[in-house]
């Protein structure tokens, strides 16, 4: 494992509603090493809960109105502040605002247009002919790049003592290629035009370090740690590699086109948590874990019939057996069964709870789990 920046080297901002911040960071850092100080870390917020927390009903808005709503920096930070107002953050629940225009914003930095919905956005594929790929040049002056900067600055002006400010949801790699080309078209391309797929994949990763460093530098200049949508800060450089597109493809194609990207995007980071978005992505675990710079996994089992966690215990145990720290998202109804079944080493639990006393009770329960 690479040396990680320690608390003594970088001073974290103070968060009034989270007096145990430093201890929480210690637990997170111990988790990366599969160690436990007094209990496993726990976050009292479910996966993607931020999408519902700081929002308004814009379903009836026109297309342009929706975009304006997402682009209203002051409103977005207001909504986030409202969502954390009066709340105390227990366990390892860090209050983090990250500027958000949706997961395809990386593709938009190169010219893709985004269509905005209620809780997320989608890129409109625009690489129709292969010549269109000649237009794929990073444009730091484009409206999306500038808006992410603007959202970041608005948040930095209002965060002191209240919350951390992170960087946006970056998806270089095949997810970006799928956003440029359309996911189903890309599936055809893997067979029909593998050379062009490789060309787009190379383009999609070329500027990643530059983009990451741009926002990392901006945030660190303002005394922030390194953190994004997962809400797990690092004193160093934290990244969330992922490849949701890989759920659609075979192991062979992921190894050919996804692995080089993963190797590249993780190289300079001190903390990489790979976002495993469902069983479709989990089939690539062998390839994902072949990259030593993948330090941990976030297991996202999905919704509907996939959500109850107990069916995934064998998979999570397999991850533990491989020495991988893993984030597990589960409902409060499953918590007791899960604790009874599992060993706590390497687990970071995410549980959505509405009641503060219940959060404190769960923390005490976790101390007995060890």
């Amino acid at each position, binding site marked *: 494992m690479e040396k990680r920046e320690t608390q003594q080297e970088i001073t974290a901002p103070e968060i009034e509603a989270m007096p145990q911040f430093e201890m929480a960071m210690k637990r997170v850092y111990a988790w990366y090493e599969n160690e436990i100080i007094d209990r496993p870390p726990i976050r009292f917020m479910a996966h993607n809960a931020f999408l519902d927390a700081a929002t308004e009903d814009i379903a009836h808005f026109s297309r342009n109105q929706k975009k304006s709503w997402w682009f209203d920096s002051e409103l977005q930070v207001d909504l986030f502040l409202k969502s954390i107002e009066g709340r105390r953050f227990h366990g390892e629940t860090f209050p983090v605002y990250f500027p958000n225009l949706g997961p395809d914003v990386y593709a938009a930095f190169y010219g893709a247009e985004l*269509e905005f919905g*209620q809780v997320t956005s989608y890129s409109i594929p625009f690489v129709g002919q292969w010549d269109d790929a000649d237009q794929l040049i990073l444009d730091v002056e484009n409206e999306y790049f500038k808006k992410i900067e603007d959202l970041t600055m608005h948040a930095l002006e209002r965060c002191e003592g209240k919350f951390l400010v992170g960087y946006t949801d970056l998806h270089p790699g095949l997810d970006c290629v799928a956003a440029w080309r359309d996911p*189903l078209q890309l599936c055809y391309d893997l067979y029909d035009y593998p050379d062009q797929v490789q060309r787009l994949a190379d383009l999609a990763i070329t500027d990643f370090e530059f983009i990451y460093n741009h926002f990392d530098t901006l945030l660190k200049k303002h005394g922030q740690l390194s953190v994004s949508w997962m809400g797990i800060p690092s004193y160093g450089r934290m990244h969330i590699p992922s490849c949701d597109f890989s759920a*659609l493809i075979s192991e062979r194609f992921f190894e050919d086109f996804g692995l080089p990207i993963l190797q590249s995007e993780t190289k300079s980071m001190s903390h990489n948590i790979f976002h495993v978005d469902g069983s479709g992505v989990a089939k690539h675990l062998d390839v994902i874990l072949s990259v030593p710079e993948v330090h941990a996994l976030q297991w996202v089992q999905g*919704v*509907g019939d996939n959500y109850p966690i107990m069916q995934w215990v064998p998979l999570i145990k397999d991850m533990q057996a491989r020495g991988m720290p893993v984030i597990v998202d589960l409902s409060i109804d499953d918590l007791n069964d899960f604790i009874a079944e599992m060993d706590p080493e390497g687990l970071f639990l995410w549980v959505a709870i509405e009641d503060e006393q219940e959060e404190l009770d769960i923390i005490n329960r976790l101390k007995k789990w060890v």
Partner: protein
Amino acid sequence: MAAAEGTHLEQISRAVVEGDREATISGVQAALEANIDPHTILQGALIPAMSDVGRLFEQGEYFVPEMLIAARAMKSGLELLKPLMIGADIKPRGRIALGTVQGDLHDIGKNLVGIMLEGAGFEVYDMGTDVPVDRVVEVIKTEQVDLIGLSALLTTTMPMMESTIQSISEAGIRDQVKVMIGGAPITQEYADKIGADGFAPDASQATRLAVELISK
């Protein structure tokens, strides 16, 4: 003759399963030159091949790219047969309108289901994404569809499935169509609760469900 016919059909079937468009086209051409009935080529090779592809997908041997190129190969073969079948008045298996519910912009699953349904001999009317409830009612009234397929990927948009089914009932046309639903947050329990006729967790099973519903 039967053995030769069998060989032609096997070759076409294999070409489809392997996603080999050129081999499918040449296989169909050869079969036609051997005076094999177009209907036999369709029902004896092209459609069963897509069932095999669906099975391979459900078994985890095939993934979306393999399904897509197989469906493309099948369609290429079908295009050669269509002009010959028009005169014979061979109808599609059924007509289905597909859409993602109001407020939801995800379309990968819907598009994949559409491709697989075409591969199974259905005529597909694509309503697109973010489909208003009224539009679904209008499509049932004007497009002579047998089935409606609704997709939702978000827990926030799935309630529109229930609203859509309610509106179809309120319009007095619920008995004109079967409604099947799918998408990540959808379960059989939810389908039963809202009065859908069926639920399928993936494109391959959606195709089998459509075949089953159309036969009822």
